[in-house]
């Protein structure tokens, strides 16, 4: 499946009085068109920071995108989100990439009617204005299931309940037909019955509109109900990734195993909940070891001295045909797209203990290839990424393969901006 977003080796740091906080340490992932990618992690695991930095929503300073690339394959062109100018990323935000924030209370302006707030993004990113924009806003309110939308158009956020406010947020996020929707724990502040309503709504909308979704949550149940694939984050890195069904039934990273065991069940045996001793890691120390090592019952000497790369696990092991695995699959794969894609989205776990065989990994076992994004970038005609992102803003605008001139993202949609 073709990717719509390719993030490679993203690292985000915050300078604080107590030192450098390593919030995200080399996160790579690929989002395929039309799929829902779930990101699970506890507070401080870097899941929100990594997604916000894709749209460059983190305050800089103190935040700093230390390194990484994020290729966004839009319909017309391919761009690196992390090196776009502020003006150009502004065209994408809320337009090609929608964002739903966690707290609908604080992310809507209490002084403006919801109608004006939906129109704001429509008028900024499309040619609609005046009554047309209003019409579109009312349509959107109907689409997200707000009863008597035309009357509610002129209401203020405080006149809506929490669930209704989150519906308004969704309406804003999808107002310009985005290619990607990033949802940052949108149901955490809601009650379960309201959460069920919102999940059903998002499932329906993304299917109807064909939007690719990144859904951040700490609730494994929510991820199970929505996601096609999952990334599990811990201490600023991805510790496990894979297909949602496989990852939940055959977890291959100790943290995922513990997390699934720590959930109480609605039915079944009365077993003791898993105690993952200790607390999440401090992000101040530079990451030179496995972040989960202090809490891991499987940890051994190697985990203390080396940071585990991702290894193939479970069904992902089909790509482990020896050291030449990447190239052998290339020869046999049917389409060039697939061969770059499949090993990269296959089940992987960043752990030196092989939970498939329940033994320590041989030091010679090759890690899973991490260059998936590079290959895709090469295929798309984008040169090798700079090793460090010092001169990011001076990067030439990345172009698409099909010899078209790099367009300036000033198509119809952003016409209003040109004036």
């Amino acid at each position, binding site marked *: 499946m073709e990717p719509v977003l390719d993030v490679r080796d993203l690292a985000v740091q915050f300078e604080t009085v107590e030192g450098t906080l390593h919030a995200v340490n080399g996160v790579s992932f690929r989002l395929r068109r039309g799929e829902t990618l779930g990101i699970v992690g506890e507070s401080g695991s870097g899941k929100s920071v990594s997604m916000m930095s894709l749209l460059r929503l983190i305050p800089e300073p103190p935040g700093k995108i230390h390194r990484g690339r994020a290729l966004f394959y839009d319909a017309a062109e391919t761009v690196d989100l992390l090196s776009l100018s502020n003006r150009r990323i502004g065209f994408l935000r809320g337009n090609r990439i929608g964002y739903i924030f966690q707290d609908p209370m604080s992310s809507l302006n209490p002084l403006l009617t919801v109608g004006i707030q939906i129109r704001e993004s429509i008028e900024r990113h499309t040619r609609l204005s005046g009554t047309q924009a209003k019409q579109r806003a009312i349509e959107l309110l109907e689409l997200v299931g707000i009863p008597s939308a035309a009357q509610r158009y002129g209401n203020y956020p405080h006149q809506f309940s929490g669930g209704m406010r989150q519906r308004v947020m969704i309406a804003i996020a999808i107002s310009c037909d985005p290619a990607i929707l990033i949802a940052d724990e949108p149901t955490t502040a809601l009650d379960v*019955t309201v*959460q069920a309503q919102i999940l059903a709504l998002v499932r329906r909308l993304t299917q109807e509109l064909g939007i690719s979704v990144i859904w951040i949550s700490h609730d494994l149940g929510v991820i*199970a109900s929505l996601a096609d694939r999952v990334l599990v984050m811990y201490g600023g890195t991805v510790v496990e990734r894979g297909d949602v069904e496989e990852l939940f*039934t055959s977890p291959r990273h100790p943290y995922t*195993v513990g997390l699934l065991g720590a959930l*109480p069940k609605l039915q*079944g045996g009365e077993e003791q909940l898993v105690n993952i001793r200790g607390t999440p890691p401090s992000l101040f120390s530079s990451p030179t070891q496995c972040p989960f090592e202090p809490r891991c019952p499987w940890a051994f000497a190697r985990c203390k001295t080396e940071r585990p790369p991702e290894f193939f696990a479970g069904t992902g092991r089909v790509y482990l045909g020896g050291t030449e695995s990447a190239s052998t699959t290339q020869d046999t794969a049917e389409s060039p797209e697939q061969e770059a894609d499949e090993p990269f989205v296959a089940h992987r776990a960043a752990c030196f203990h092989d939970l498939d065989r329940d033994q320590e990994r041989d030091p010679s076992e090759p890690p899973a290839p991490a260059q998936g994004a590079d290959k895709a970038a090469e295929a798309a005609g984008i040169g090798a990424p700079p090793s460090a992102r010092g001169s990011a803003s001076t990067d030439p605008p990345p172009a698409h393969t099909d010899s078209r001139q790099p367009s300036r993202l000033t198509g119809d949609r952003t016409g209003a901006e040109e004036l």
Partner: protein
Amino acid sequence: MSEPFVRVENLKQHFPITRGVVFSKQVGAIKAVDDVSFEIYPGETLGLVGESGCGKSTTGRSILRLYEPTDGRVTIDGTEVTALDDEALRAFRPRMQMVFQDSYSSLNPRHSVAKIISEPLVIQGTRDQRKLRDRVAELLELVGLEADHMRRFPHEFSGGQRQRIGIARALSLNPQFIVCDEPISALDVSIQAQVVNLLKSLQRELGLTYLFIAHDLSMVRHISDRVAVMYLGKLAEFGRYDRIFSRPLHPYTQSLMSAVPIPVPEVEKKRQQILLSGDVPSPAKPPPGCVFHTRCPFAAERCRAEVPQQEEVEPDHFVACHMVNDPTVGPQITQRAGHIVEEVKAASGTGPDRQFTPARDVGNR
């Protein structure tokens, strides 16, 4: 069966809505808790579950008389708490304590941990510094912290550790009854399990009786012997946990159970969830009759007019619903219960194929 340790009878907690500043007069009332009755048996945990604004926290606070109940009677271990005067109430307080939800705001940031945990002891008359220090050290170890943590301040601890400090403070006076007001809601999943395991082991060791307030149905099932489901100030369903979870009969309990996402993708994606329409009505203007009738798919004329009373549908299982015993609608409700439970049961058969214990450790046991 033994006598109930805590008995709550027709508890009402209404908060006045007033208008005007100088000559303010009451124009209405928020009926946060409206005619709630239940019992908790010694050494047991009652799980009180419901959505935000349903009055579950208020119930907990009214039982401990942190609010003055508007009406009703609370008896703890034979003493009628609602009848005690101030002096007697203070003397009784050591026997009933509370763990609060938000460990950020319930611990004074300017006090050391030693001062926080020893404060109840000081209020109850212990003055000997050495005794206080020893007791604090003992309590810290009991909740899984270290004795020398007592010199530190709340900001130096993580959320889970702060909740442990809150638990140590509640335990300092050797209470018999503890109200746990959403003690784990603000914590991460792995830390939630730690705190719940701690609460359970403390209960076994010290013979505590808990009122455990939560909105997480699966956690309530895990920790409770009995469960009470609340909606808009009233009890919808009450009974032994296994009864309620194997046959949820109140339509509200059913929708609550159906809405909890199950962390098993193949089951969760196929599930037919019951979606409630609309929102919880305002407790200032609760609907007449059954408070749930505005969102209930089974509501009939009678539900709009008459307040349903708790009825025992089977031993240890009470439901406040007119329609459960209705000859035509009743079987539909029962059938729906069976359907929901079946879906949930489908998930219990599967689970992760790895345990969080290395094989070598299992062998050592």
